[in-house]
């Protein structure tokens, strides 16, 4: 939307039709001369209407999409109409036709009856101006393409009083004719309902001539105005032509800038809105109301599907997905699960696997949505609760993570007795929790430590993993490492656990050991995108930016090519890639001083980046 269009009065035309208006309406201040008889009733009661119509070339924004229309006009003037179709034009006019048909009819009836007053003053007034403004736009295309430069029209804008040259007369006539044609297009019947358009039609025919502001010729209404039109306006001088040309040129050039600036503004506005929304979800409550918000706010409620996943009739998508998982190809598994879940949205098992896989695919937001959906079928699903806790932790949504962990413990027959009633209550009643707030990090840590102490001789891998997550939250990374080492002893073949061990090591700046852990994870599951991403992070920490870029690109390529492997069509392959990876890649480019690639990154252009960082395909 161009704000300038709405705020500033239209200061006029670069087209002969505007000129036409000016010609006819030069004097606004005609008096109600008190004509006797039928006509006066017409004039008098519609005085306002005509005044309004005549006086303003720039009506206030109306309910018809003025901004679109005015912007159209400017676009056309810039002779960029190849960029924008004039398509909206005629439909709007048709709209106007339809809705104004009655009014126009009455208007016509009035004038022909010559007596019955039109009682539609204001309504008609505004609609008339709309018709005027909407109508005048359509034929501009035609006139522009005629060839005479816009400068001519700007000149006309200033030269109101110059006697019209033959050429200009012709152009006016032509414009008028085209207006009628486009406005009422292929339905000449409608024409007779509009006096104005009739008038314009007559101009086009040549029956009515516009000459130096005077209208001569047959139309009743027009000649009335002719009589009423008084006085000369100020003479335009030659000097104004020079200014007009510069102005017109500058005006056109300015439009492109406008467009960019307002697009920029719009984009910025929306981005800010989104950012505000997102940032509101962060924890660390300062205000009780805000804490309630952060507790129950979940921006990932609804799973966002890739726009079109037309292979919804892929048979056994679920089985296929599981097969991919077994192979370790996470992105392909994800695609299959998405297809499966579309076919069978009430199947909690698919949602569950989809959630787990998306987390491994480095797409936590999607994972959270899917896991929550699985939870809705079975609120006591412990693996899902644990996975949610981890994903929330990664997304810095501490409160939600803690809630999930407490819920998890409550569902565990072994440990549920450990959960103090206070915490339990806060789960049950949202109202209560808004007063008390969620469980604190310390409380939950103590809870899980108690659980460990409950069985000192055996390692409960789940408890250890949960504790590891908690220690990551409190930045006690060495303790977290100990927990995950214990967990990995019990589960040496869990790539997820190895990854978590690696992440805790990395967070604690033990980069070399972290790499070893990630390597184990990738050995078990070569398509473990998250682990690959984490390796990239290690490279960044070690200032090996080129290698970091290569790892990140490897992950992205793997995701992008999953479409082919899974045999499922998607309309926007870009959505299969993880935003987190792109964000980090952008940072790597900045760190490397390769801001020239920023554009490619914003466009998610893998081809360009692959060329810049050639890797032997693996």
């Amino acid at each position, binding site marked *: 939307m161009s704000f*300038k269009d709405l705020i500033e009065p239209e200061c006029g035309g670069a087209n002969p039709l505007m000129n036409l208006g000016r010609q006819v309406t030069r004097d606004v201040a005609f008096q109600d001369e008190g004509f006797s008889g039928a006509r006066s009733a017409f004039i008098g009661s519609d005085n306002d209407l005509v005044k309004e119509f005549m006086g303003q070339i720039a009506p206030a924004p109306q309910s018809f999409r003025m901004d679109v229309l005015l912007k159209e006009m400017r676009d056309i003037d810039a002779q960029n109409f190849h960029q924008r179709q004039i398509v909206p034009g005629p439909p709007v006019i048709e709209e106007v036709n339809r809705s104004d048909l009655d009014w126009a009819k009455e208007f016509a009836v009035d004038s022909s009856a010559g007596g019955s007053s039109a009682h539609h003053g204001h309504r008609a007034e505004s609609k008339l101006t709309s018709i005027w403004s909407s109508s005048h736009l359509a034929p501009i295309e035609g006139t522009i393409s005629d060839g005479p430069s816009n400068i001519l029209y700007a000149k006309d804008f200033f030269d109101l009083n110059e006697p019209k040259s033959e050429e200009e007369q012709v152009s006016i006539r032509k414009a008028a004719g085209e207006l009628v044609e486009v406005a009422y297009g292929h339905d000449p019947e409608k024409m007779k309902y509009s006096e104005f358009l009739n008038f314009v039609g007559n101009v086009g025919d040549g029956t009515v001539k516009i000459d130096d502001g005077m209208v001569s010729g047959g139309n009743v209404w027009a000649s009335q105005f002719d009589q009423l039109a008084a006085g000369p306006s100020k003479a335009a001088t030659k000097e104004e032509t020079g*200014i007009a040309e*510069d*102005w017109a040129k*500058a005006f056109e*050039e*300015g439009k*492109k*800038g*406008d467009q*960019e*600036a307002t697009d*920029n*503004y719009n984009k*910025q506005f929306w981005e800010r809105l989104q*950012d*505000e929304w997102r*940032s*509101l979800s*962060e*924890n*660390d409550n*300062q205000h009780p109301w805000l804490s309630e918000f952060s507790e129950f706010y979940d921006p990932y409620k609804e799973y966002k599907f890739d726009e079109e996943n037309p292979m919804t009739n892929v048979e056994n998508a679920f089985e296929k997905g599981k097969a991919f998982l077994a192979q370790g190809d996470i992105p392909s598994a994800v695609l299959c699960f998405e297809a499966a879940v579309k076919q069978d949205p009430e199947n909690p098992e698919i949602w569950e696997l989809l959630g787990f896989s998306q987390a491994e695919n*480095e797409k*936590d937001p999607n994972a959270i949505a899917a896991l929550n959906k699985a939870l809705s079928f079975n609120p006591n699903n412990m693996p899902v609760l644990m996975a949610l806790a*981890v994903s929330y*932790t*990664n997304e810095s949504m501490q409160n939600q993570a803690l809630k999930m962990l407490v819920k998890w413990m409550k569902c565990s027959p072994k440990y549920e007795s450990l959960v103090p009633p206070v915490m339990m209550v806060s789960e049950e009643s949202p109202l209560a929790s808004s007063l008390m707030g969620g469980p604190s990090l310390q409380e939950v840590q103590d809870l899980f430590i108690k659980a460990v102490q409950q069985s000192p001789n055996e390692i409960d891998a789940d408890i250890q993993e949960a504790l*590891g*997550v908690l220690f*990551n939250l409190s930045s006690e990374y060495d303790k977290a490492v100990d927990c995950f080492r214990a967990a990995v002893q019990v589960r040496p073949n869990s790539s997820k656990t190895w*990854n*978590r061990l*690696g*992440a*805790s090591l*990395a*967070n604690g*700046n033990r980069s070399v050991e*972290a790499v070893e852990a990630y390597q184990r994870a990738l050995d078990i599951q070569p398509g473990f995108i*998250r682990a690959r*991403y*984490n390796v990239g*992070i*290690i490279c*960044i*920490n070690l*200032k090996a930016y080129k290698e970091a870029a290569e790892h990140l690109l490897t992950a992205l390529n793997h995701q992008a090519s999953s479409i082919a492997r899974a045999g499922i069509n998607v309309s926007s392959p870009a959505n299969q890639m993880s935003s*987190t990876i792109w*964000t*980090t890649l*952008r*940072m790597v480019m*900045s*760190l490397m*001083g390769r*801001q*020239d690639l*920023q*554009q490619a990154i914003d466009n998610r252009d893998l081809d360009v980046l692959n060329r810049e960082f050639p890797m032997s395909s693996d």
Partner: protein
Amino acid sequence: MHLCVIGAGVVGLTTALELQREFRNANVTILADRFEQDTCSDVAAGLFRPGTSFSGPTEEITRKWISDAYLYWDEIRRTADASEAGVAQLSAYIFSSTDPSIVRNRYIEKILPVYRAVTEQELTLCPGDWKYGSFYTTVLTECRLFQPWATKKFLRNGGRIITQKVESFQQVAGQYDVVVNCTGMGAKKLCTDYKLVPIRGQVIKVKAPWVKTAFYADYDTYIIPGFQGVTLGGCRNYDSYNTEVCKHDSAAIRERCEALLPSLKGAPVIREAVGLRPHRDPVRVEPELLDLVRGRVKVVHNYGHGGYGVTTSPGTAIYATGLVTDMLKSNSKL
């Protein structure tokens, strides 16, 4: 989450405000040793007019900074806060007797509501043989008002200001998640950045309330009416560290401005000031990971704006905040 901004000039303040906006629940701290009237920003007239040589890492990024900055200032200008914040609309003429390209400005011609060539008649507005000129309508930010206003806003949002001279990043290691370096000339020492060059500028602020439009003549001479007086300038001494007012510069400025606008003769002087514009090509807004003895520090640099600090600070603040976001998101994932 703890974020830190080093430097409290216009760049530091806008960056701190932007961080607060982006990270609602973070604790933002400003560390600086010079505030308000002791900063380079205080000397500036504050007219929104980026020089055509102003450059960021790429042309696109530079243009984005400038358009973001304009929208930021324009937004404040449209609110009731504008008078307290010191932001107002101002029109300006720029004349040249030598070169038409001096009066053009590819960065703002499309952004400002008005940027046009002057008429023959307008060229005669000021004494002198002016051959080329432009007229434009832009925004002015009076730092004497903006800095206190921004500081108040920052503190009201829960920010914290600590007076401290930061001579090395060691001093901030381990305490903050990300540190944003808005130290201007200070970065020369802090980062050992040899590309940072001071461009000395001197101005005279006079009381001349009848001047309502800004005038630039061939760049070196400018008359810019602000909220608290009219700024007469100036000079651009490359690589000069002299922070004292020079009487010869003063006389030259006065003479040139009075030649351009004779009504200024006798206008009383409010104050004279010197500032060292922290110039760098390109302006440095980029991330850096520092490995120090005390630990790793994530830094985003935001300095080197030269004579266009007031003008472009919001744009670079927004960009720098984006870099902070990227840095924060890029963690090892469990």
